[in-house]
């Protein structure tokens, strides 16, 4: 049971962070289908920091630098969406899809190239970070980590930023009625870049939280197994509102955890070997039927919710429509 709780919390934190990221982007008017790709690149950023930090670095520094690494990578990567969608008015679905494919491909190429450069016989796409990861844990031997606290803090900050600050009011106006924002002198392009960059930051952070969840190495060929899309579902189920997104994240995180637990995985997570077993089991639910069902559930629920609510959708009204200053 404690295992279920641990994993629910881990997955919920990931989903919460990424969905909040998506929420910022959509409130600015840009649909971010590319969250999956952003997560992979953010995870890569964090993993590289963990890999290259000397073993003796103190916990807080590791945590801080990993967060900075993943956030920076995520933001840089999200600029691909920002530039294409805002400056060049590209189709946001097309660009997002490309980013998802590109994220995994690029991360794999980079990691493989680095591994091969270190050791010519190493052609894997893995990065391991056993020592660094332990420093994230709140309690030794239990999968409660600092990221969960961070996620809660970011939830609160997101709510305040969106609804209590000048920035939030302006951001949301750009997603609802950019012509109105422009007419009162708000720079719609800037606000949309801000929204996309925040989604990159939170998506990237979510990525690193995901790959450090109970495992000490990551094979980048695997991407993030649809967590970016699951986060989209969380955002939709959460009706683009931080509070409801948090509830949705917990629910969907619980389903994911259930699916993992149902794969028959129990036992100590303390040592690396068990963690690897866990990893393998997680992604090889050989013939395990209930686990798969729990994986499907979040998507089915979202679809049903969409079917019943889309006629009066809470989605920002101008999302997905490129803003052109010339056309008003």
């Amino acid at each position, binding site marked *: 049971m404690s295992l279920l709780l641990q994993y629910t919390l881990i997955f919920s934190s990931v989903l919460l962070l990424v969905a909040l990221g998506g929420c910022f982007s959509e409130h600015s008017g840009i649909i971010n*289908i590319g969250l999956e790709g952003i997560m992979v690149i953010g995870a890569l950023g964090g993993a590289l920091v963990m890999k290259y930090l000397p073993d003796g670095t103190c916990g807080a520094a590791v945590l801080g630098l990993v967060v900075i690494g993943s956030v920076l990578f995520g933001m840089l990567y999200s600029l691909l969406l920002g530039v*294409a969608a805002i400056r*060049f*008015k*590209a*189709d946001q*679905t*097309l660009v997002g*899809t*490309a*980013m*998802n*494919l*590109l994220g*995994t*491909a*690029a991360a*794999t*190429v980079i990691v*493989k*190239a680095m591994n*091969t*450069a270190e050791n010519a016989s190493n*052609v894997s*796409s893995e990065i391991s970070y056993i020592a660094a990861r332990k420093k994230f844990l709140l309690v030794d031997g239990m999968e409660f980590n600092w990221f969960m606290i961070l996620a809660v803090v970011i939830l609160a900050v997101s709510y305040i930023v969106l609804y209590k600050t000048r920035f939030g009011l302006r951001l949301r106006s750009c997603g609802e009625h950019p012509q109105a924002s422009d007419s009162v002198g708000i720079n719609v392009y800037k606000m949309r870049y801000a929204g996309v960059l925040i989604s990159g930051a939170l998506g990237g952070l979510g990525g690193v939280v995901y790959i450090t969840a109970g495992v000490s190495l990551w094979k980048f*060929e*695997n*991407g993030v*197994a*649809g967590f970016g*899309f699951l986060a*989209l*579902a969380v955002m*939709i189920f959460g009706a683009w509102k931080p509070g409801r997104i948090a509830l949705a994240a917990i629910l969907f995180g619980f389903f994911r955890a259930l699916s993992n637990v149902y794969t028959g995985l129990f036992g100590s997570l303390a040592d690396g070997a068990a963690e690897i077993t866990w990893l393998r089991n997680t*992604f090889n*639910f*050989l*013939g395990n*039927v209930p686990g*798969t*069902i729990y*994986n*499907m559930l979040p*998507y*089915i629920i*979202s*679809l049903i919710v*969409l*079917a*019943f609510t*889309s*006629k*009066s*959708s809470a989605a920002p*009204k*101008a999302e997905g*429509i490129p803003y*052109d200053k010339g*056309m*008003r």
Partner: protein
Amino acid sequence: MKEKKSFFKLPVVQALLVSLFCILLGLIIGFIVLLIIKPAGAWEAITTILKNFWNYTRTNLQLKNLGNTLVKTAPLLMCSLSVLFAYKAGLFNIGAAGQYVVGAGACLYCALAWHLPWYVCLLAALAAGALLGVISGALKAYCNVNEVISCIMLNWISLYLINMLLTNVKETTSPYTFKLSTAGEQSFLPNLGMGDALFGKNQYTGLALIIAILAAVLIWFILGKTKLGYELKATGYNRSAARYCGMKEKKNLIMTMAISGALAGTGAALLYLTGFTEWMTTQSSVPAMGFNGIAAAFLGGLNPIGAIFSSFFIQHITDGGSFMTKIGFPSQISDLISSLIIYLCGFVMFIKLTFNGFLDRHSKSTGTNVNAEPAPVQEPAPDAQTAVADNKEGGNEE
């Protein structure tokens, strides 16, 4: 009033040039990445990718590997037709990936569990894909659910569902489904002796390729020449107008997604019924085939005939990537290039505008049509306006 259009202003020529530009840019960026990884072998690597089957010296092996590329081109072409057809009718079928998955599941299950003949398996795949398309279409027609979102959800639902279904027809010791040659010989797509005759005894090459190319021609015909095409496109461009002029706009929308889904579903059958590969029931990601279909569709200038060539090209460089590991580069470099090409396809409009601007500056001689009335400057963007208006309309319904 007719004036001679400059060669470079012909739509076909422009589409081709833009696609070539995207490819070139994608390759250059890929090359730069290769240079960073290992400057010494970069040139060899990029040429290896582009050579693909020509990397073999013996003609026989070249042909056989060309055959392999063609085997995978067929499903890719079907997926790109799926995306293209929907896009031409105003819908973004990001769900080609999921429709491909259910197609694979349906045909493999029919072949391996029930041992049905190939044409039944093929039809099962077609029906499964179409059904998934219908779900997205109906959700959009009746519940106003954006097809991109519903397709994303359905992609994942399909993946988990098919993984679950095909677990019943897999080897106990491996995650792969039974081989067609051992468990479902009756379901092999006929290869019509094509592989033997043309592709160095490649038993996988055959009917699939022919079906895919025929499908491309059929789609070109439907979209450009038929009443069905006229109605579906009208519905896609402007649902309200389609309704106004008496079309069954909900039916049309669902029909578009059904055809689109059927194409992607059939695509899967064209691969898995050749026995070229098996389904891995532990896949944790939706297969890239459907997404690459998006790339091929856009790279082919959203033209069914163009899609034949763009699908081949994308498969060609993807297969070329498999030679990379041998010369010390990651094979994903070709995924990187093809995803870059999709990304660049997002800029097609911009590239065309820039290109035309360039042309206009360099050929002042082409006078403007005197009878042409300028489009109204002050009218607000009609599409943005209608999009918002549609949204509002949806919002007002109880």
